[in-house]
C-alpha cells in the first residue's frame, strides 16, 4: 500500500510539474517533450487505478502517435521568439479572462465534490466481473451499451480525417508519377526491339519514346 501511495504522489508530482513546464518552457520542442512526460505519467496513474488497458492505450495513442506528430510539426515550424513576445501585453487581458473562466469552473466543480463518495487512496474502484479481464470488460460495455456513441465518435474522427485530406490535397501539374504496376509489368519484349538497320538507313524510333 505504501508503494502505491508513493507511486501515486510520484506520478502526480511529475505529471503536474511537467504540465507546468509545458507552458513555461521557452522552446516549443521542449514543451512537446514535457507534454509527452505528462502523458506518460498519466498512464502511470491509470495503472495505479487498475486500468492497465487504458494506460497502455493512452501511451500507444497519445505518446506513440499523437505526440510524435505534434513534435513533427513543431520541429519544422520556424518560430521567431521576438514576434511571439511582442503581443504579450496586448493579449494579456484576454488570457486573464479565459483563465478566470476556467478557474471559476474548477472552483464550482470542486464545490460539489463529495468527499464521502471518493474511494480510499490505492483502492481500486469497481473492477471487472469475475473471469473477465479489464480489456474484455471494456469491450463488452463499449460494443453493447455504448455502441451508438462509440460508432458516432468513430464517424466524427473519419470526417475530420477526410476533411484534413480534402483541405490539404492539391494536384500538381507536370509531375511524372511513378506507376509501379506498369513498371513491374514491363517486359523486355515490350520495351526493346531488335533491329538490323541497313547501312545509312538509321532506325525508326516511332513508338519507342514511351
Amino acid at each position, binding site marked *: 500500500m505504501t508503494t502505491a501511495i508513493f507511486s501515486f504522489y510520484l506520478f502526480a508530482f511529475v505529471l503536474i510539474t511537467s504540465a507546468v513546464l509545458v507552458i513555461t518552457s521557452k522552446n516549443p*520542442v521542449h514543451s512537446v517533450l514535457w507534454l509527452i512526460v505528462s502523458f506518460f505519467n498519466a498512464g502511470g496513474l491509470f495503472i495505479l487505478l487498475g486500468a*492497465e488497458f487504458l494506460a497502455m*492505450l493512452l*501511451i*500507444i495513442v497519445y505518446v*506513440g502517435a499523437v505526440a*510524435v506528430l505534434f513534435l513533427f510539426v513543431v520541429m*519544422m515550424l520556424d518560430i521567431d521568439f521576438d514576434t511571439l513576445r511582442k503581443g504579450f501585453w496586448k493579449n494579456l487581458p484576454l488570457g486573464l479572462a479565459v483563465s478566470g473562466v476556467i478557474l471559476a469552473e474548477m472552483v464550482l466543480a470542486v464545490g460539489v465534490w463529495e468527499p464521502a463518495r471518493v474511494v480510499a487512496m490505492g483502492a481500486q474502484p469497481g473492477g471487472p466481473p469475475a473471469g473477465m479481464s479489464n480489456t*474484455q470488460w471494456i469491450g*463488452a460495455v463499449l460494443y453493447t451499451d455504448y455502441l451508438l456513441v462509440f460508432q458516432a465518435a468513430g464517424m466524427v474522427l473519419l470526417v475530420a480525417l477526410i476533411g484534413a485530406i480534402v483541405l490539404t490535397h492539391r494536384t500538381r501539374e507536370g509531375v511524372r508519377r511513378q506507376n509501379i504496376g506498369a513498371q513491374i509489368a514491363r517486359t523486355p519484349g515490350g520495351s526493346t526491339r531488335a533491329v538490323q538497320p541497313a547501312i545509312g538507313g538509321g532506325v525508326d524510333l516511332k513508338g519507342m519514346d514511351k
Partner: protein
Amino acid sequence: MTYTGWFQNNFGDGPGWFLANLTLILAIVLPVMVGVAMAVYADRKIWAAMQMRRGPNVVGPFGLLQTFADAAKLFLKETIIPAGASRAVFMLAPMISFVLALAIWAVMPFDAGVVLADLNVGLLYVFAVSSMGVYGIIMSGWASNSKYPFLGGLRSAAQMVSYEVSMGFILVAVILYAQSLNLSDIVMAQQGNVLGILNGNIFNPLLFPMAIMFFIVALAETNRPPFDLPEAEAELVAGYQVEYSSMSFALFFLGEYANILFMCALIPVLFLGGWLPPLDWAPLYLVPGFVWMLAKMAVMFFCFAWVKAAVPRYRYDQLMRLGWKVFLPLSLFWVVVVSGWLMFFTDKFATVPGRVLL
C-alpha cells in the same frame, strides 16, 4: 517455493520482492547484451558469407570477440557534444533508445512460465514501448542541430508511425485467434491449432499472409534494410547518429540490435509457436522449450541478416506508398476476413465471458 518466495522468506516481503526482481532483470539483460554482441558478429559473418568474404576473423577464435573489441574501442573514445546542440535532449536521446530497447524484454516469455512480467496486456505493452522507441531517434535528430540528423530523425518518425498502424492490425488478427493479449496465452493458444498437429499460427492459411507482412513490418520498425532510411549512409551519412560518438553512439547501436533481437523473439511468439516444437508430437517435447525458442530466434535473425545482405534500400516515397497504400488496406481487409471467419465458422466469440448474443 517460487523464486520470489525464497527471497521474500529471507529478506522480508518488500526487499525480497525487489531483490528477486532485480536478479531476474539482470538474468534477462545480461544474456540480451551478450546476445546483441553475438548478433552483431553473426550479422557481419552472414553478410560476409553472402558476399564471398571472410568477415571478422582476427579477434578471438573465429573472430568471436570482434564485437567486444569494437565496444571497448568505443568506450575509450571521447564523448563529443556539438556546440550548437541542445545538451539535455542530446544526452537523453540515446538513453531513451537503450532503456526502451531493454524494457520491452520484460514481457517476453522464453518458456512456459519463464517470464519476468506476465502482464495480461503484454502485447499492448510491447506495442506501447516499441511505439515510444521513435523518440530516441527523433530527439537525437532534433537535438544535434544539424541537417543530416534532422532529416534522418524526420524520416524515421514518419516511417515508424506509418508502419505501426499496419503492425497494430496484424496484432489484432493474432489476438482474435488467441483471445488474449498475454504473450504466454498467445503461445499456448497455438498448441496444435492447425489440424491438431502443427503448432504455430503461420501454418494457418488465414494468418500466413499476416506472418509475412509482420516480418516486413518488423524490418521497417527496427530500421533494418531495405527500410534503413533513417541511417541511409549514401544520402544522410548516418542519419540521426551523425553527431554521436563514443558511449552515446554505442547506446544507439546496442538499443537498435536489442530491438532487432526482440523482433526476432516476437515473431516466434506470435506466429511460430514460441517455445512449442513445430509439431504437436510427444517426443519433440523432450527438447526443452527454451531451446526451441532460441532456435526459432536464431532462424529469424538469420532471415533478418539475409534480407539485409540481399536487397537494396527503398526510396522514401516508395516506402511511404508501401506502408500506407499496400500494407494498411491489406491488413485492415485481412482483419475483417479473419474476424468474419472466427465469427461465423468457429465458436471463438461464443466462449468469451461477457459475450453478446446476436
